[in-house]
Protein backbone atom coordinates (compact mmCIF):
# COMPACT_ATOMS: atom_id res chain seq x y z
CA UNK A 1 0.00 0.00 0.00
CA UNK A 2 1.26 3.49 -0.86
CA UNK A 3 2.46 5.93 1.75
CA UNK A 4 -0.51 7.82 3.20
CA UNK A 5 -0.70 11.38 4.43
CA UNK A 6 -0.72 10.03 7.94
CA UNK A 7 2.66 8.36 7.42
CA UNK A 8 4.17 11.70 6.52
CA UNK A 9 2.89 13.39 9.70
CA UNK A 10 5.55 13.92 12.28
CA UNK A 11 5.38 10.82 14.44
CA UNK A 12 7.28 12.54 17.24
CA UNK A 13 4.48 14.98 18.09
CA UNK A 14 1.48 13.34 19.68
CA UNK A 15 -1.34 15.86 20.14
CA UNK A 16 -3.83 13.81 22.15
CA UNK A 17 -2.96 10.81 24.28
CA UNK A 18 -5.57 8.70 26.03
CA UNK A 19 -4.06 6.25 28.50
CA UNK A 20 -6.36 3.60 29.92
CA UNK A 21 -9.35 5.92 29.92
CA UNK A 22 -12.41 4.53 31.69
CA UNK A 23 -15.77 6.18 32.17
CA UNK A 24 -18.54 4.87 34.38
CA UNK A 25 -22.07 6.25 34.61
CA UNK A 26 -23.30 4.46 37.70
CA UNK A 27 -23.38 0.80 36.66
CA UNK A 28 -22.88 1.61 33.00
CA UNK A 29 -19.30 1.23 31.75
CA UNK A 30 -19.21 3.68 28.83
CA UNK A 31 -15.46 3.66 28.12
CA UNK A 32 -13.50 0.48 28.84
CA UNK A 33 -9.83 1.32 28.76
CA UNK A 34 -9.20 3.54 25.77
CA UNK A 35 -5.54 3.77 24.69
CA UNK A 36 -5.08 6.14 21.83
CA UNK A 37 -2.53 8.54 20.40
CA UNK A 38 -3.63 11.16 17.92
CA UNK A 39 -0.85 12.94 16.08
CA UNK A 40 -0.54 16.68 15.56
CA UNK A 41 -2.16 17.78 12.31
CA UNK A 42 -4.09 14.56 11.88
CA UNK A 43 -7.70 14.25 10.70
CA UNK A 44 -8.85 11.56 13.09
CA UNK A 45 -12.28 9.92 13.27
CA UNK A 46 -14.07 8.03 16.01
CA UNK A 47 -16.47 5.72 14.20
CA UNK A 48 -19.05 3.39 15.63
CA UNK A 49 -22.76 2.67 16.09
CA UNK A 50 -24.77 4.79 18.53
CA UNK A 51 -24.00 3.97 22.14
CA UNK A 52 -20.45 2.76 21.41
CA UNK A 53 -18.90 5.54 23.50
CA UNK A 54 -17.49 7.67 20.68
CA UNK A 55 -19.30 10.83 21.76
CA UNK A 56 -18.43 10.17 25.39
CA UNK A 57 -14.76 9.91 24.44
CA UNK A 58 -14.96 13.16 22.49
CA UNK A 59 -16.62 14.89 25.44
CA UNK A 60 -13.94 13.65 27.85
CA UNK A 61 -11.29 15.11 25.52
CA UNK A 62 -13.24 18.39 25.43
CA UNK A 63 -13.53 18.34 29.23
CA UNK A 64 -17.32 18.18 29.42
CA UNK A 65 -17.14 14.80 31.13
CA UNK A 66 -14.73 13.70 33.85
CA UNK A 67 -13.00 10.38 33.38
CA UNK A 68 -13.31 7.65 36.00
CA UNK A 69 -9.81 6.30 35.49
CA UNK A 70 -6.76 6.80 33.28
CA UNK A 71 -5.33 9.99 31.84
CA UNK A 72 -5.85 12.31 28.91
CA UNK A 73 -2.94 14.45 27.69
CA UNK A 74 -3.25 17.22 25.16
CA UNK A 75 0.01 18.52 23.75
CA UNK A 76 1.87 16.58 26.46
CA UNK A 77 -0.01 18.25 29.33
CA UNK A 78 -2.28 16.28 31.63
CA UNK A 79 -5.85 17.52 31.42
CA UNK A 80 -7.20 16.00 34.67
CA UNK A 81 -7.62 19.31 36.45
CA UNK A 82 -8.16 21.49 33.38
CA UNK A 83 -11.82 22.46 32.81
CA UNK A 84 -13.31 22.64 29.31
CA UNK A 85 -13.06 26.41 29.12
CA UNK A 86 -9.29 26.29 29.71
CA UNK A 87 -8.45 23.42 27.36
CA UNK A 88 -6.79 24.09 24.00
CA UNK A 89 -9.75 22.43 22.29
CA UNK A 90 -12.87 23.81 20.67
CA UNK A 91 -15.95 21.94 19.65
CA UNK A 92 -18.43 21.99 16.77
CA UNK A 93 -21.66 20.62 18.20
CA UNK A 94 -24.08 18.31 16.45
CA UNK A 95 -26.79 20.96 16.72
CA UNK A 96 -24.16 23.62 15.88
CA UNK A 97 -25.26 25.51 19.03
CA UNK A 98 -25.33 28.84 17.21
CA UNK A 99 -26.43 31.55 19.66
CA UNK A 100 -29.79 32.54 18.17
CA UNK A 101 -30.00 35.99 19.76
CA UNK A 102 -26.68 37.16 18.29
CA UNK A 103 -25.60 38.09 14.78
CA UNK A 104 -23.23 35.94 12.76
CA UNK A 105 -20.30 38.23 13.59
CA UNK A 106 -21.18 38.26 17.31
CA UNK A 107 -21.32 34.47 17.25
CA UNK A 108 -17.91 34.19 15.62
CA UNK A 109 -16.41 36.83 17.93
CA UNK A 110 -17.85 35.20 21.07
CA UNK A 111 -14.65 33.41 22.04
CA UNK A 112 -12.68 36.65 21.76
CA UNK A 113 -14.60 38.34 24.58
CA UNK A 114 -11.71 37.84 26.99
CA UNK A 115 -9.09 38.68 24.38
CA UNK A 116 -7.32 41.97 25.14
CA UNK A 117 -6.93 42.95 21.51
CA UNK A 118 -8.72 46.04 20.16
CA UNK A 119 -12.12 46.20 18.52
CA UNK A 120 -10.82 46.80 14.99
CA UNK A 121 -8.35 43.98 15.25
CA UNK A 122 -11.04 41.58 16.44
CA UNK A 123 -13.37 42.66 13.64
CA UNK A 124 -10.61 41.85 11.13
CA UNK A 125 -10.16 38.41 12.71
CA UNK A 126 -13.90 37.78 12.42
CA UNK A 127 -13.86 38.82 8.77
CA UNK A 128 -10.95 36.47 8.10
CA UNK A 129 -12.66 33.59 9.89
CA UNK A 130 -15.88 34.14 7.94
CA UNK A 131 -13.96 34.35 4.67
CA UNK A 132 -12.21 31.09 5.52
CA UNK A 133 -15.54 29.23 5.73
CA UNK A 134 -16.99 30.97 2.69
CA UNK A 135 -19.27 33.40 4.54
CA UNK A 136 -17.61 36.72 3.69
CA UNK A 137 -20.08 39.55 4.19
CA UNK A 138 -22.53 37.54 6.32
CA UNK A 139 -21.44 39.21 9.58
CA UNK A 140 -24.53 41.32 10.12
CA UNK A 141 -27.05 38.57 9.40
CA UNK A 142 -29.18 37.29 12.24
CA UNK A 143 -27.92 33.83 13.18
CA UNK A 144 -31.40 32.31 13.33
CA UNK A 145 -32.02 33.19 9.67
CA UNK A 146 -29.21 30.95 8.37
CA UNK A 147 -29.61 27.61 6.58
CA UNK A 148 -28.22 24.39 8.06
CA UNK A 149 -25.07 24.51 5.96
CA UNK A 150 -24.45 28.14 6.88
CA UNK A 151 -24.90 27.44 10.59
CA UNK A 152 -22.35 24.70 10.27
CA UNK A 153 -19.88 27.17 8.74
CA UNK A 154 -20.52 29.73 11.47
CA UNK A 155 -19.88 27.04 14.08
CA UNK A 156 -16.58 26.21 12.36
CA UNK A 157 -15.51 29.86 12.14
CA UNK A 158 -16.47 30.43 15.78
CA UNK A 159 -14.31 27.51 16.92
CA UNK A 160 -11.36 28.09 14.59
CA UNK A 161 -11.00 31.82 15.35
CA UNK A 162 -9.49 30.80 18.71
CA UNK A 163 -6.79 28.81 16.93
CA UNK A 164 -7.27 25.74 19.13
CA UNK A 165 -4.74 22.93 19.08
CA UNK A 166 -7.57 20.48 18.52
CA UNK A 167 -10.93 20.92 16.85
CA UNK A 168 -13.55 18.43 18.02
CA UNK A 169 -16.48 17.74 15.71
CA UNK A 170 -19.51 15.88 17.07
CA UNK A 171 -21.44 14.40 14.10
CA UNK A 172 -21.24 17.77 12.38
CA UNK A 173 -22.75 16.68 9.08
CA UNK A 174 -25.58 14.42 10.23
CA UNK A 175 -28.22 17.18 10.02
CA UNK A 176 -27.42 18.09 6.41
CA UNK A 177 -28.98 16.60 3.29
CA UNK A 178 -26.88 14.27 1.15
CA UNK A 179 -25.63 16.79 -1.43
CA UNK A 180 -24.74 19.38 1.19
CA UNK A 181 -23.05 16.70 3.30
CA UNK A 182 -20.81 15.56 0.47
CA UNK A 183 -19.89 19.15 -0.32
CA UNK A 184 -19.08 19.89 3.33
CA UNK A 185 -16.95 16.73 3.59
CA UNK A 186 -14.66 18.02 0.88
CA UNK A 187 -14.63 21.52 2.36
CA UNK A 188 -13.77 20.20 5.80
CA UNK A 189 -10.83 18.24 4.40
CA UNK A 190 -9.55 21.34 2.58
CA UNK A 191 -10.07 23.47 5.67
CA UNK A 192 -8.15 21.04 7.84
CA UNK A 193 -5.23 20.98 5.38
CA UNK A 194 -5.30 24.79 5.29
CA UNK A 195 -5.28 25.45 9.04
CA UNK A 196 -3.21 22.39 9.98
CA UNK A 197 -5.13 21.94 13.24
CA UNK A 198 -5.74 18.41 14.57
CA UNK A 199 -9.37 17.48 13.83
CA UNK A 200 -11.18 14.78 15.79
CA UNK A 201 -14.46 13.80 14.19
CA UNK A 202 -17.20 11.67 15.71
CA UNK A 203 -19.45 9.92 13.20
CA UNK A 204 -21.61 6.84 12.80
CA UNK A 205 -21.35 7.10 9.00
CA UNK A 206 -18.56 4.76 7.84
CA UNK A 207 -18.47 6.32 4.37
CA UNK A 208 -17.94 9.76 5.88
CA UNK A 209 -15.11 8.46 8.05
CA UNK A 210 -13.44 6.76 5.07
CA UNK A 211 -13.71 9.88 2.93
CA UNK A 212 -12.38 12.36 5.45
CA UNK A 213 -9.95 10.72 7.84
CA UNK A 214 -6.24 10.06 7.95
CA UNK A 215 -6.95 7.42 10.56
CA UNK A 216 -10.09 5.94 12.06
CA UNK A 217 -10.75 4.32 15.41
CA UNK A 218 -13.70 1.93 15.12
CA UNK A 219 -15.43 1.60 18.50
CA UNK A 220 -17.85 -0.97 19.85
CA UNK A 221 -19.19 -1.03 23.42
CA UNK A 222 -16.66 1.36 24.87
CA UNK A 223 -13.60 -0.24 23.30
CA UNK A 224 -11.54 0.45 20.22
CA UNK A 225 -11.96 -2.53 17.89
CA UNK A 226 -9.51 -1.31 15.26
CA UNK A 227 -7.37 1.76 14.70
CA UNK A 228 -6.13 2.11 11.14
CA UNK A 229 -6.07 4.19 8.00
CA UNK A 230 -9.17 4.03 5.78
CA UNK A 231 -7.63 1.67 3.23
CA UNK A 232 -6.32 -0.78 5.80
CA UNK A 233 -9.61 -0.67 7.67
CA UNK A 234 -11.55 -1.47 4.52
CA UNK A 235 -9.23 -4.09 3.09
CA UNK A 236 -8.04 -5.78 6.31
CA UNK A 237 -10.70 -5.48 9.02
CA UNK A 238 -9.36 -6.66 12.37
CA UNK A 239 -12.44 -8.74 13.09
CA UNK A 240 -15.71 -9.69 11.56
CA UNK A 241 -17.67 -7.05 13.43
CA UNK A 242 -15.54 -4.28 11.93
CA UNK A 243 -15.90 -5.92 8.52
CA UNK A 244 -19.68 -5.92 8.94
CA UNK A 245 -19.73 -2.29 10.02
CA UNK A 246 -17.52 -0.88 7.26
CA UNK A 247 -19.02 -1.19 3.81
CA UNK A 248 -20.56 -4.40 2.45
CA UNK A 249 -18.90 -7.79 2.81
CA UNK A 250 -20.02 -11.25 1.70
CA UNK A 251 -19.49 -14.10 4.16
CA UNK A 252 -19.26 -17.82 3.37
CA UNK A 253 -18.77 -20.54 5.97
CA UNK A 254 -15.24 -21.97 5.85
CA UNK A 255 -13.36 -25.06 6.96
CA UNK A 256 -9.74 -24.81 8.07
CA UNK A 257 -7.75 -27.61 6.45
CA UNK A 258 -4.31 -26.84 7.81
CA UNK A 259 -1.78 -24.24 8.85
CA UNK A 260 1.91 -24.12 7.92
CA UNK A 261 4.54 -21.37 8.05
CA UNK A 262 1.86 -18.77 8.85
CA UNK A 263 -0.22 -19.70 5.86
CA UNK A 264 -3.71 -21.00 6.55
CA UNK A 265 -5.30 -23.39 4.10
CA UNK A 266 -9.07 -23.13 4.13
CA UNK A 267 -12.00 -24.27 2.08
CA UNK A 268 -15.24 -22.42 1.42
CA UNK A 269 -18.17 -23.86 -0.56
CA UNK A 270 -18.19 -22.30 -4.01
CA UNK A 271 -14.66 -20.94 -3.73
CA UNK A 272 -12.73 -24.15 -3.22
CA UNK A 273 -9.43 -24.45 -1.37
CA UNK A 274 -7.37 -21.32 -0.83
CA UNK A 275 -4.06 -20.52 0.89
CA UNK A 276 -4.25 -17.35 2.97
CA UNK A 277 -1.24 -15.56 4.51
CA UNK A 278 -1.50 -14.20 8.06
CA UNK A 279 -2.35 -10.66 6.92
CA UNK A 280 -5.56 -12.01 5.38
CA UNK A 281 -6.61 -13.70 8.61
CA UNK A 282 -8.82 -11.88 11.17
CA UNK A 283 -10.78 -12.70 14.27
CA UNK A 284 -14.33 -14.06 14.09
CA UNK A 285 -17.14 -12.77 16.29
CA UNK A 286 -17.50 -14.66 19.56
CA UNK A 287 -21.01 -15.78 18.57
CA UNK A 288 -20.06 -16.99 15.07
CA UNK A 289 -20.76 -20.65 14.32
CA UNK A 290 -17.27 -21.22 12.97
CA UNK A 291 -14.74 -19.64 10.63
CA UNK A 292 -15.99 -17.61 7.68
CA UNK A 293 -14.39 -16.28 4.53
CA UNK A 294 -15.36 -12.76 3.46
CA UNK A 295 -14.89 -10.66 0.37
CA UNK A 296 -16.02 -7.22 -0.82
CA UNK A 297 -18.55 -7.00 -3.70
CA UNK A 298 -16.14 -5.08 -5.95
CA UNK A 299 -13.23 -7.52 -5.60
CA UNK A 300 -14.77 -10.12 -7.90
CA UNK A 301 -15.57 -9.64 -11.58
CA UNK A 302 -18.40 -11.02 -13.71
CA UNK A 303 -16.96 -12.28 -16.97
CA UNK A 304 -19.04 -12.33 -20.16
CA UNK A 305 -19.42 -15.54 -22.24
CA UNK A 306 -16.52 -14.92 -24.62
CA UNK A 307 -14.41 -12.65 -22.41
CA UNK A 308 -11.01 -13.54 -21.06
CA UNK A 309 -9.55 -12.38 -17.76
CA UNK A 310 -6.25 -12.48 -15.91
CA UNK A 311 -7.49 -13.55 -12.48
CA UNK A 312 -6.06 -16.80 -11.06
CA UNK A 313 -9.42 -18.28 -10.08
CA UNK A 314 -12.80 -18.68 -11.73
CA UNK A 315 -16.14 -19.85 -10.33
CA UNK A 316 -19.36 -20.60 -12.20
CA UNK A 317 -22.51 -18.95 -10.88
CA UNK A 318 -26.16 -18.17 -11.63
CA UNK A 319 -27.55 -14.63 -11.46
CA UNK A 320 -30.48 -14.44 -9.02
CA UNK A 321 -31.10 -10.70 -8.92
CA UNK A 322 -29.93 -7.60 -10.78
CA UNK A 323 -30.09 -4.13 -9.18
CA UNK A 324 -29.25 -1.32 -11.58
CA UNK A 325 -27.93 1.95 -10.07
CA UNK A 326 -26.89 3.83 -13.21
CA UNK A 327 -23.17 3.98 -12.57
CA UNK A 328 -23.13 0.57 -10.88
CA UNK A 329 -24.99 -2.70 -11.14
CA UNK A 330 -25.35 -5.06 -8.17
CA UNK A 331 -25.71 -8.78 -8.89
CA UNK A 332 -26.89 -11.33 -6.36
CA UNK A 333 -25.34 -14.65 -7.39
CA UNK A 334 -25.53 -18.29 -6.43
CA UNK A 335 -22.05 -19.80 -6.65
CA UNK A 336 -21.96 -23.35 -7.97
CA UNK A 337 -21.29 -25.61 -5.05
CA UNK A 338 -22.10 -22.96 -2.43
CA UNK A 339 -24.95 -25.08 -1.09
CA UNK A 340 -22.85 -28.27 -1.09
CA UNK A 341 -21.94 -28.02 2.58
CA UNK A 342 -25.40 -28.10 4.17
CA UNK A 343 -27.89 -27.39 1.40
CA UNK A 344 -28.34 -23.71 2.33
CA UNK A 345 -28.37 -21.27 -0.58
CA UNK A 346 -25.86 -18.53 0.11
CA UNK A 347 -26.30 -15.66 -2.32
CA UNK A 348 -23.31 -13.33 -2.65
CA UNK A 349 -23.39 -9.75 -3.89
CA UNK A 350 -21.05 -8.55 -6.63
CA UNK A 351 -20.86 -4.94 -7.85
CA UNK A 352 -19.78 -4.00 -11.35
CA UNK A 353 -19.08 -0.53 -12.67
CA UNK A 354 -21.14 0.11 -15.81
CA UNK A 355 -18.26 1.12 -18.06
CA UNK A 356 -18.94 1.79 -21.74
CA UNK A 357 -19.29 -1.40 -23.76
CA UNK A 358 -20.15 -3.68 -20.85
CA UNK A 359 -23.71 -5.00 -20.96
CA UNK A 360 -25.81 -5.53 -17.89
CA UNK A 361 -26.45 -9.27 -17.58
CA UNK A 362 -29.92 -10.73 -17.08
CA UNK A 363 -31.47 -12.61 -14.18
CA UNK A 364 -31.11 -16.37 -14.61
CA UNK A 365 -27.98 -16.13 -16.77
CA UNK A 366 -25.23 -18.67 -16.17
CA UNK A 367 -22.05 -16.71 -15.73
CA UNK A 368 -18.44 -16.87 -14.62
CA UNK A 369 -16.91 -15.03 -11.70
CA UNK A 370 -13.20 -14.18 -11.78
CA UNK A 371 -11.35 -13.53 -8.54
CA UNK A 372 -8.08 -13.76 -6.67
CA UNK A 373 -7.46 -15.37 -3.24
CA UNK A 374 -5.64 -12.12 -2.34
CA UNK A 375 -8.99 -10.37 -1.93
CA UNK A 376 -10.34 -12.82 0.64
CA UNK A 377 -10.31 -12.39 4.41
CA UNK A 378 -10.59 -15.37 6.73
CA UNK A 379 -12.33 -14.77 10.08
CA UNK A 380 -11.50 -17.49 12.60
Amino acid at each position, binding site marked *: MSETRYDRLDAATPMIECRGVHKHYGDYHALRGIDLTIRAGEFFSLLGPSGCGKTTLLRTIAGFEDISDGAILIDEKRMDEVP*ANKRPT*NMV*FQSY*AIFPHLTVAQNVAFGLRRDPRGKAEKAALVEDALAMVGLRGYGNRAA*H*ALSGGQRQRVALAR*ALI*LKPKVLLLDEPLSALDRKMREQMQVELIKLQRQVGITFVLVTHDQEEALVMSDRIAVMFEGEIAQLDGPEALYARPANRRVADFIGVMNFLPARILGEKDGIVTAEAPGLGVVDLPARQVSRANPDDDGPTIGFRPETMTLVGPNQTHSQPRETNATIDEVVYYGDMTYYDLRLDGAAAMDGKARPVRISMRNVFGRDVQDVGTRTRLAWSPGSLVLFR
Partner: protein
Amino acid sequence: MRGQGRGLQVYAALYLLFLYAPIILLPLFAFNSGTIIAFPLQGFTTGWFAQMWANATLRTALTNSLIIAVSASILATCLGIFAARASTRFEFPGKGGMMGFILLPMVLPEIIVAMSLLVVLLGMGVQLSILTVIVGHTLICMPYAIAILTTAFSSLDKSLEEAAYDLGETRWSAFRLITLPLVMPGIISSLLISFTISLDEFIIAFFLAGNQPTLPTYIFSQLRFPKQIPMIMALGTALVALSIVLLALGEYFRRRGNARMGGNPTGGFL
Protein backbone atom coordinates in the same frame (compact mmCIF):
# COMPACT_ATOMS: atom_id res chain seq x y z
CA MET B 1 -75.56 25.09 8.50
CA ARG B 2 -76.38 28.80 8.57
CA GLY B 3 -78.79 28.45 11.45
CA GLN B 4 -76.30 26.42 13.41
CA GLY B 5 -73.63 29.09 12.78
CA ARG B 6 -75.99 31.78 14.04
CA GLY B 7 -76.64 29.77 17.20
CA LEU B 8 -72.94 29.46 17.92
CA GLN B 9 -72.47 33.19 17.35
CA VAL B 10 -75.17 33.98 19.87
CA TYR B 11 -73.62 31.54 22.32
CA ALA B 12 -70.20 33.13 21.90
CA ALA B 13 -71.61 36.62 22.35
CA LEU B 14 -73.47 35.60 25.52
CA TYR B 15 -70.37 33.91 26.84
CA LEU B 16 -68.24 37.03 26.35
CA LEU B 17 -70.99 39.17 27.87
CA PHE B 18 -71.05 36.95 30.94
CA LEU B 19 -67.26 37.20 31.23
CA TYR B 20 -66.83 40.90 30.72
CA ALA B 21 -70.11 42.68 31.54
CA PRO B 22 -69.32 42.91 35.28
CA ILE B 23 -65.88 44.29 34.50
CA ILE B 24 -67.29 46.85 32.07
CA LEU B 25 -69.59 48.06 34.87
CA LEU B 26 -66.49 49.08 36.88
CA PRO B 27 -65.38 52.05 34.75
CA LEU B 28 -69.03 52.90 34.05
CA PHE B 29 -69.78 53.54 37.71
CA ALA B 30 -66.27 54.81 38.48
CA PHE B 31 -66.98 57.85 36.31
CA ASN B 32 -70.63 58.15 37.39
CA SER B 33 -71.39 61.08 39.69
CA GLY B 34 -74.21 59.24 41.48
CA THR B 35 -73.39 57.68 44.87
CA ILE B 36 -75.63 54.66 44.33
CA ILE B 37 -74.57 51.83 42.04
CA ALA B 38 -77.67 51.75 39.86
CA PHE B 39 -78.89 52.75 36.43
CA PRO B 40 -79.65 55.26 35.02
CA LEU B 41 -76.19 56.86 35.13
CA GLN B 42 -75.91 60.37 36.46
CA GLY B 43 -73.28 62.87 35.32
CA PHE B 44 -69.60 62.33 34.53
CA THR B 45 -67.04 62.82 37.29
CA THR B 46 -63.43 62.00 38.10
CA GLY B 47 -64.14 62.80 41.72
CA TRP B 48 -64.00 59.20 42.90
CA PHE B 49 -60.46 58.88 41.59
CA ALA B 50 -59.49 62.05 43.44
CA GLN B 51 -61.09 60.71 46.61
CA MET B 52 -59.25 57.45 46.13
CA TRP B 53 -55.94 59.25 45.74
CA ALA B 54 -56.57 61.33 48.86
CA ASN B 55 -57.36 58.27 51.00
CA ALA B 56 -54.32 57.59 53.21
CA THR B 57 -55.34 54.05 54.26
CA LEU B 58 -55.87 53.11 50.64
CA ARG B 59 -52.44 54.48 49.77
CA THR B 60 -50.91 52.36 52.53
CA ALA B 61 -52.80 49.30 51.27
CA LEU B 62 -51.63 49.99 47.74
CA THR B 63 -48.01 50.45 48.83
CA ASN B 64 -48.18 47.24 50.87
CA SER B 65 -49.68 45.32 47.99
CA LEU B 66 -47.07 46.60 45.55
CA ILE B 67 -44.20 45.74 47.91
CA ILE B 68 -45.65 42.27 48.45
CA ALA B 69 -46.35 41.63 44.76
CA VAL B 70 -42.97 42.85 43.56
CA SER B 71 -41.07 40.91 46.25
CA ALA B 72 -43.10 37.73 45.85
CA SER B 73 -42.85 37.74 42.05
CA ILE B 74 -39.07 38.30 42.11
CA LEU B 75 -38.56 35.63 44.79
CA ALA B 76 -40.82 33.11 43.10
CA THR B 77 -39.20 33.72 39.72
CA CYS B 78 -35.64 33.43 41.06
CA LEU B 79 -36.44 30.21 42.91
CA GLY B 80 -38.35 29.07 39.82
CA ILE B 81 -35.26 29.61 37.63
CA PHE B 82 -33.22 27.30 39.87
CA ALA B 83 -35.88 24.60 39.90
CA ALA B 84 -36.63 24.84 36.17
CA ARG B 85 -32.97 24.71 35.23
CA ALA B 86 -32.33 21.76 37.51
CA SER B 87 -35.34 19.83 36.25
CA THR B 88 -34.59 20.40 32.56
CA ARG B 89 -30.81 20.05 32.71
CA PHE B 90 -30.04 17.31 35.21
CA GLU B 91 -31.21 13.86 36.11
CA PHE B 92 -31.34 13.09 39.81
CA PRO B 93 -33.10 10.52 41.98
CA GLY B 94 -36.63 11.45 42.99
CA LYS B 95 -36.87 14.21 40.38
CA GLY B 96 -40.39 13.32 39.29
CA GLY B 97 -41.78 13.23 42.81
CA MET B 98 -39.96 16.40 43.80
CA MET B 99 -41.30 18.38 40.83
CA GLY B 100 -44.78 17.02 41.56
CA PHE B 101 -44.63 18.24 45.15
CA ILE B 102 -43.34 21.64 44.07
CA LEU B 103 -46.30 22.05 41.72
CA LEU B 104 -48.85 20.75 44.25
CA PRO B 105 -49.73 24.12 45.87
CA MET B 106 -51.27 25.08 42.51
CA VAL B 107 -54.20 22.76 43.20
CA LEU B 108 -54.15 22.84 47.01
CA PRO B 109 -57.05 24.90 48.47
CA GLU B 110 -55.59 28.27 49.34
CA ILE B 111 -57.39 28.42 52.63
CA ILE B 112 -55.56 25.25 53.71
CA VAL B 113 -52.21 26.78 52.74
CA ALA B 114 -53.10 30.01 54.55
CA MET B 115 -54.24 28.22 57.71
CA SER B 116 -51.24 25.94 57.94
CA LEU B 117 -48.88 28.83 57.33
CA LEU B 118 -50.60 30.84 60.05
CA VAL B 119 -50.31 27.97 62.53
CA VAL B 120 -46.63 27.45 61.74
CA LEU B 121 -45.75 31.15 61.84
CA LEU B 122 -47.59 31.73 65.10
CA GLY B 123 -46.01 28.60 66.53
CA MET B 124 -42.59 29.95 65.61
CA GLY B 125 -43.47 33.24 67.22
CA VAL B 126 -43.12 35.23 64.02
CA GLN B 127 -44.77 38.65 64.04
CA LEU B 128 -47.44 38.84 61.31
CA SER B 129 -46.63 41.59 58.80
CA ILE B 130 -46.29 42.11 55.07
CA LEU B 131 -43.13 39.98 55.30
CA THR B 132 -45.20 36.95 56.21
CA VAL B 133 -47.56 37.71 53.33
CA ILE B 134 -44.53 37.83 51.01
CA VAL B 135 -43.55 34.35 52.21
CA GLY B 136 -47.06 33.04 51.61
CA HIS B 137 -47.37 34.62 48.19
CA THR B 138 -43.96 33.34 47.11
CA LEU B 139 -45.19 29.88 48.02
CA ILE B 140 -48.35 30.09 45.90
CA CYS B 141 -46.64 31.85 42.97
CA MET B 142 -43.79 29.32 42.76
CA PRO B 143 -45.74 26.57 40.93
CA TYR B 144 -46.84 29.00 38.23
CA ALA B 145 -43.34 30.43 37.89
CA ILE B 146 -41.85 26.94 37.60
CA ALA B 147 -44.44 25.81 35.07
CA ILE B 148 -43.71 28.81 32.84
CA LEU B 149 -39.93 28.67 33.27
CA THR B 150 -39.70 24.92 32.69
CA THR B 151 -41.31 25.44 29.29
CA ALA B 152 -38.83 28.21 28.52
CA PHE B 153 -35.81 26.17 29.65
CA SER B 154 -36.83 22.94 27.99
CA SER B 155 -37.13 24.61 24.58
CA LEU B 156 -33.47 25.59 24.88
CA ASP B 157 -30.68 23.53 23.29
CA LYS B 158 -28.39 22.24 26.03
CA SER B 159 -25.34 22.62 23.79
CA LEU B 160 -25.71 26.42 23.75
CA GLU B 161 -24.39 26.84 27.28
CA GLU B 162 -21.73 24.19 26.69
CA ALA B 163 -20.63 25.99 23.54
CA ALA B 164 -20.19 29.26 25.44
CA TYR B 165 -18.26 27.42 28.16
CA ASP B 166 -16.13 25.72 25.51
CA LEU B 167 -15.37 29.13 24.01
CA GLY B 168 -13.75 30.27 27.24
CA GLU B 169 -16.58 31.66 29.38
CA THR B 170 -17.13 30.51 32.95
CA ARG B 171 -20.21 28.47 33.91
CA TRP B 172 -21.82 31.61 35.31
CA SER B 173 -20.98 33.94 32.43
CA ALA B 174 -22.14 31.31 29.94
CA PHE B 175 -25.47 31.24 31.78
CA ARG B 176 -25.66 35.04 31.94
CA LEU B 177 -24.67 35.67 28.31
CA ILE B 178 -26.54 32.86 26.59
CA THR B 179 -29.21 31.16 28.68
CA LEU B 180 -30.53 34.20 30.51
CA PRO B 181 -31.29 36.30 27.40
CA LEU B 182 -32.87 33.30 25.70
CA VAL B 183 -35.21 32.49 28.60
CA MET B 184 -35.93 36.19 29.29
CA PRO B 185 -39.40 36.03 27.71
CA GLY B 186 -40.23 33.21 30.14
CA ILE B 187 -38.80 35.17 33.06
CA ILE B 188 -40.89 38.24 32.18
CA SER B 189 -44.00 36.06 31.83
CA SER B 190 -43.27 34.50 35.20
CA LEU B 191 -42.77 37.88 36.88
CA LEU B 192 -46.02 39.23 35.42
CA ILE B 193 -48.13 36.21 36.32
CA SER B 194 -46.70 36.07 39.84
CA PHE B 195 -47.25 39.81 40.26
CA THR B 196 -50.87 39.51 39.14
CA ILE B 197 -51.53 36.50 41.35
CA SER B 198 -50.05 38.22 44.39
CA LEU B 199 -51.71 41.59 43.79
CA ASP B 200 -55.28 40.26 43.99
CA GLU B 201 -54.69 37.44 46.47
CA PHE B 202 -57.09 37.70 49.40
CA ILE B 203 -57.10 34.67 51.68
CA ILE B 204 -53.40 34.47 52.53
CA ALA B 205 -53.17 38.25 52.86
CA PHE B 206 -56.22 38.21 55.14
CA PHE B 207 -54.70 35.51 57.39
CA LEU B 208 -51.05 36.57 57.44
CA ALA B 209 -50.97 40.34 57.19
CA GLY B 210 -51.70 41.02 60.85
CA ASN B 211 -53.15 44.52 61.01
CA GLN B 212 -51.52 45.65 57.75
CA PRO B 213 -54.00 46.27 54.92
CA THR B 214 -53.39 45.04 51.37
CA LEU B 215 -55.56 46.14 48.46
CA PRO B 216 -57.88 43.13 48.45
CA THR B 217 -58.35 43.13 52.23
CA TYR B 218 -58.89 46.90 52.17
CA ILE B 219 -61.50 46.61 49.40
CA PHE B 220 -63.25 43.86 51.33
CA SER B 221 -63.33 45.97 54.48
CA GLN B 222 -64.77 48.97 52.66
CA LEU B 223 -67.62 47.05 50.99
CA ARG B 224 -69.57 47.36 54.23
CA PHE B 225 -69.86 51.11 53.68
CA PRO B 226 -72.17 51.92 50.70
CA LYS B 227 -70.71 55.42 50.60
CA GLN B 228 -67.29 54.03 49.69
CA ILE B 229 -68.47 51.84 46.82
CA PRO B 230 -68.02 54.35 43.97
CA MET B 231 -64.45 54.88 45.13
CA ILE B 232 -63.89 51.11 45.15
CA MET B 233 -65.23 51.08 41.60
CA ALA B 234 -62.62 53.68 40.69
CA LEU B 235 -59.93 51.56 42.36
CA GLY B 236 -61.12 48.50 40.47
CA THR B 237 -60.98 50.44 37.21
CA ALA B 238 -57.39 51.47 37.93
CA LEU B 239 -56.45 47.85 38.71
CA VAL B 240 -58.04 46.53 35.51
CA ALA B 241 -56.19 49.17 33.49
CA LEU B 242 -52.92 48.26 35.22
CA SER B 243 -53.46 44.54 34.48
CA ILE B 244 -54.13 45.22 30.81
CA VAL B 245 -51.01 47.39 30.53
CA LEU B 246 -48.86 44.74 32.26
CA LEU B 247 -50.13 41.89 30.11
CA ALA B 248 -49.69 43.93 26.93
CA LEU B 249 -46.14 44.79 27.97
CA GLY B 250 -45.36 41.16 28.74
CA GLU B 251 -46.70 40.02 25.39
CA TYR B 252 -44.78 42.76 23.59
CA PHE B 253 -41.47 41.67 25.14
CA ARG B 254 -42.20 38.04 24.48
CA ARG B 255 -42.97 38.62 20.80
CA ARG B 256 -39.95 40.86 20.36
CA GLY B 257 -37.76 38.18 21.93
CA ASN B 258 -39.21 35.53 19.65
CA ALA B 259 -38.80 37.67 16.56
CA ARG B 260 -35.17 38.27 17.44
CA MET B 261 -34.50 34.56 17.66
CA GLY B 262 -36.83 33.48 14.88
CA GLY B 263 -38.21 30.90 17.28
CA ASN B 264 -41.69 29.62 17.86
CA PRO B 265 -43.68 31.28 20.59
CA THR B 266 -43.15 29.25 23.73
CA GLY B 267 -43.35 29.90 27.43
CA GLY B 268 -45.82 32.75 27.07
CA PHE B 269 -49.36 33.02 28.27
CA LEU B 270 -51.11 34.82 25.44
